Structure formats: structure tokens, C-alpha cells
């Protein structure tokens, strides 16, 4: 449960030196994708930061986001962040289950009314679809969400499913899945999309709230600009190859071995806004493009329906070849019909022609 101890006090109580605290601040700045010049401000803010209560709701999801999050839950530094938040409900991680778990959620809501943060992963069946498609403890996802966010200070949609509907919403969307922002309209929302999001990004957003007591600056899709402000393409270390026109043509050619640009192999980097190119995965070990595979665009809405993963971004998503063939045939039919009508008109006009004589000319 949230308490009134500040983070600074909490750290000191744990015997962390000031040097350690500065190091922690440096790590926090890096995690929040803030420049090192922000470290003193972070230190100042962290001193005074209080532990917020967090309620984590999981709906139509695969737990990948939680898996990702736990990868960031390394001991000590990031751990301290999580020591500093009060994760009061997370039905995957918590020990409690059944009525006890739901009671914990309700208790957290009551105690921190208006102050707690709701983190959601997974989409929900929309209000118009069958609520039975996804329930927890007999409560439909929609009802639980709406009930929980009532007293929330902010909602963080973690993962593309929660942020934009995700795979459940992929055509033909059998469960009528919708994103959290489609149904929650009256609360500040942060979308942290990705399939899954980079763990540091999840913790970074929470850290930002923890440090500054407010939500980070967002883009038009409500994603934190610090992480989603630049496209994969613009931050990609292979960008110089794109500019030079050096492309891998398949996954086993010279270009692929030399690490050339993967645009032609379907990399969606140019339209994808995420921090993979800089933060990377596995604590900075590598990321998809570095491992030789194009970006799938997983942090963008509807990425699953955005054409083939291995087709270049500029390729239309529909079967244009078939359309083109049909159009040519239709054009030929229309053209021949119009042409024959024209021909008939022309010969009709020619038949109407009366021989011009000079006598007529004279009268003309």
C-alpha cells in the first residue's frame, strides 16, 4: 500500500549512499530517455517522490507484456523503482487469488481514491460485443475496467493490445476487441505500445510518474515522446545504407551478411515510432534489425493488418495485381463499347454529309 515515505528516505533507510543515489539517478535518466543534464533535477525530484499505488489489470493479452516487465525487474536499481511503487493488484504476479485478490483491488481503490494508477495490458471485448468473451472472477473486462478506472489518477495502457487493440483486434476481430482509449475517455491515458513494449519503456513511464508526479509528454497517439518521438528508421544504425541505396534483397545474400538496409525485406522502420534502435533489447544486447530482421512495426496501430511483414512499406496492402487485371478488362469493355458508339456516330455523321458544290458556296 502507498505510504507517505519519500523515495529519498526509503533509499537512505536501505543504506544507499549518495553516490549510489546519483548512480541510481543516472540509470533513471537513461531509462526515461532523458539527457544526463537532467540528472540533478531527477535527484531532486526523487528525494521528494512518494510511492504511488498501482493496480495492474490484464485482459485479452498473452502475458508477454508482463514477461517483458519482469525482465526489467532486475535487482537493485530497477528493483528500487518497484520497491517504490505499491503494486497492489496484478493477478499474474500476486500471490492472492480469487475473492482475496479482488478484495485487494477494491481495498487499494478505496484507500487511494483519485490517486492510484491503473496499468492495463490486453484489449477488451467492446461494449457492443459479448461480455462473456473475457471475464475475471465473473466480471466482464469492460465492467472491471470501467469500475477500476473510476478513481484512477491516470491509466497506462501497456502493450499494443491495450493501446490500440492489438492482435485480438486483427481482422476479422471476432471478439469485437477495442483499445482501452476507445472506452476510457475521461482519464489521462498513456499508451505504451509494443508487442511487447521494451521493459525499460514500461518502467520508464512509471518512473517518470514517480519522479515528476505527472505523465510524460505524449505524441498524437498518446505515446510518451521520450521513447516514441523518433522512428526506428531515423535512429537505425543501418540508416546510412538506406541513404546510399544499399539493400539486402533476401535474407541470405551479401547485403544481408554485410548488414545493409532491410527496407526491401519489409522493414517497417520508417513508419514505426519506438526506442528499439537505441535502448535495444535484452538490456542493450541487440534488437531485431541488428539481428538481421526488419522491424514489424509492432508499436503502431493495426500493424498486424498493415500488409505482409516481408513486403516493403511502399507496397499496397491489397492485391493490386488482381485489381489491375480486372480494371484492364473492364476498361477494355468500356472502351470498346464507347469506341463502337463513337464509330457509329462518326459514320452517321458521314452519312449526313451532303456534297458541297460551288453553287452552295456562292450562296453560303
Amino acid at each position: 500500500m502507498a505510504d507517505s515515505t519519500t523515495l529519498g528516505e526509503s533509499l537512505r533507510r536501505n543504506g544507499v549512499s549518495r553516490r549510489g543515489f546519483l548512480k541510481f539517478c543516472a540509470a533513471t535518466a537513461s531509462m526515461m530517455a532523458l539527457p544526463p543534464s537532467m540528472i540533478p533535477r531527477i535527484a531532486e525530484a526523487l528525494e521528494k517522490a512518494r510511492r504511488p499505488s498501482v493496480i495492474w489489470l490484464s485482459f485479452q493479452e498473452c502475458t508477454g507484456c508482463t514477461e517483458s516487465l519482469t525482465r526489467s525487474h532486475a535487482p537493485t536499481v530497477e528493483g528500487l523503482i518497484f520497491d517504490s511503487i505499491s503494486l497492489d493488484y496484478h493477478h499474474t504476479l500476486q500471490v492472492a487469488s480469487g475473492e482475496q485478490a479482488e478484495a485487494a483491488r477494491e481495498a487499494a481503490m478505496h484507500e487511494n481514491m483519485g490517486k492510484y494508477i491503473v496499468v492495463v495490458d490486453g484489449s477488451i471485448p467492446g461494449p457492443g460485443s459479448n461480455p462473456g468473451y473475457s471475464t475475471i472472477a465473473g466480471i466482464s473486462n469492460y465492467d472491471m475496467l470501467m469500475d477500476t478506472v473510476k478513481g484512477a489518477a491516470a491509466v497506462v495502457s501497456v502493450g499494443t493490445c491495450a493501446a490500440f487493440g492489438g492482435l485480438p483486434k486483427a481482422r476479422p476481430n471476432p471478439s469485437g476487441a477495442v483499445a482501452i482509449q476507445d472506452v476510457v475517455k475521461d482519464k489521462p491515458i498513456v499508451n505504451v505500445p509494443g508487442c511487447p513494449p521494451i521493459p525499460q519503456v514500461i518502467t520508464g513511464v512509471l518512473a517518470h510518474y514517480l519522479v515528476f508526479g505527472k505523465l510524460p509528454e505524449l505524441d498524437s497517439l498518446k505515446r510518451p515522446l521520450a521513447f516514441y518521438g523518433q522512428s526506428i528508421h531515423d535512429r537505425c544504425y543501418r540508416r546510412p545504407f538506406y541513404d546510399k541505396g544499399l539493400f539486402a534483397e533476401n535474407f541470405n545474400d551479401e547485403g544481408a551478411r554485410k548488414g545493409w538496409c532491410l527496407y526491401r525485406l519489409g522493414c517497417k522502420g520508417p513508419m514505426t515510432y519506438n526506442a528499439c534502435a537505441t535502448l535495444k533489447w535484452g538490456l542493450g544486447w541487440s534488437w531485431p534489425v541488428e539481428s538481421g530482421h526488419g522491424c514489424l512495426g509492432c508499436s503502431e496501430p493495426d500493424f498486424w493488418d498493415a500488409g505482409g511483414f516481408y513486403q516493403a512499406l511502399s507496397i499496397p496492402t491489397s492485391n493490386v495485381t488482381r485489381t489491375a487485371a480486372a480494371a484492364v478488362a473492364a476498361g477494355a469493355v468500356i472502351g470498346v463499347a464507347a469506341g463502337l458508339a463513337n464509330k457509329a456516330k462518326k459514320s452517321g455523321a458521314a452519312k449526313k454529309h451532303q456534297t458541297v458544290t460551288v453553287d452552295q458556296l456562292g450562296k453560303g
Partner: protein
Amino acid sequence: MDFLLWVRGPAFDVAVAIFLIGVVARLFEILLLGRKPLHSEPKGGEFGNGMAEIFKRSVPLPDIVKRGAVTLVGGYVFHIGLFITIFLFVPHIELINSIFGVRWPGLPNPVVDGVTVVTMVAMVVLLVHRLLQPVKRMLSGFEDYLTWVVTFLPILTGWIAYHRLVNPYPLILGIHILTVELLLIVLPFTKLMHAFTLFLSRWYNGAVYGRRGVQS
């Protein structure tokens, strides 16, 4: 993103369909008007000369180079630039490859970028010339300015998208594709159709000269 998916999907389909239906229908409409069979004794080849004229016409007669300098230079720069930006930019090559299954190497992007700017400058010069030069101004109507706009917009939006001057990228990319779709839809029913009928016209012209034994 929804917008980008729409312009890359259904809207592109519709635009391609209208474009192809229009072009094919227009070509039939033209060709079916036919030519009268000729009885005069030919003095030279019709077909070969017509084909040769398709290429030869690309070289302007020295007579008008000076008088038509702006139109000729501007026209050349703009058409060559258009060709390069359309057919030698890698994303475009991929698009063509996905539809027709043929691909070729592209030019480095900074080169295409530079060409794009030059192309736009040439187009603006041509527009100003159209507004100022008495003959062109007299000949020009709504269609001439409409076709200028629908030709210019894809170049401009493509350039903006490439440089990411508008955010988010999917929006400007979508606008770029949408303007191309607009161009595709407008093309068959305006003077832009010359992209196709030019070959017919040059051939007919060259054929007549060829048949009469005139070297051109």
C-alpha cells in the same frame, strides 16, 4: 495509421482501378475512331518511320529552341526529374515490383532528393511561365492548373515525407500516397493522358511523313 492503411489498401485499389479502366477505355475510344484506308502510292515506310518519330520527337527542332527556351528546358528538367523520382527511388521500385514483378536498382536517396528539388523548381518555373506568357495563359484553363496541382502534390508530399518535415510519418506518407491516387484518378481524363497518347500521336505524325517519303 488507419489512414495510412486505408490509402495503401482500399483507396489504392480504387485509384488503380479507375486509372487503368480510364487509360484502357480512353485508348480504345481513340483507336476505334480509326483511320481511312489509304490508296495513294506510298513513298516510304509508315510503321518504321512512325516508331522512329516516337524517339526523334524528343529532340526539339533548333528553330524553336531559343523562342521556347523556358518551356523546353523546364519541360525537360521536369519530365526527366519526374522519371527519376518515380522510377529510380527504391520504395517506388518496390511498389512496382509488387504489382508487376520486375525490379531494378535504384539511385541513392540523396541523389533522388536533389532531383526532386530540381523537379519542383522546374515545375514552379513552368507554372509562373504559364501564368505570364501570353500564349500559355490564353491556352490555359481550369484543367491545366488542376493537372499542375495534382502532379506537383505527390512530388511535394513525397519530399516532405522523405525529410519527415511533418509528423507523424504515417500521416505524411498517407497523404503522399493519397495525392498519388488523386493523380492516378485524374490522369486518364485530362491532358495528363498525353503520357500514353504521346506515343500514338508521334507515331501517326511520323507515319504520315514517312509514308510521304519525308525524312524528319
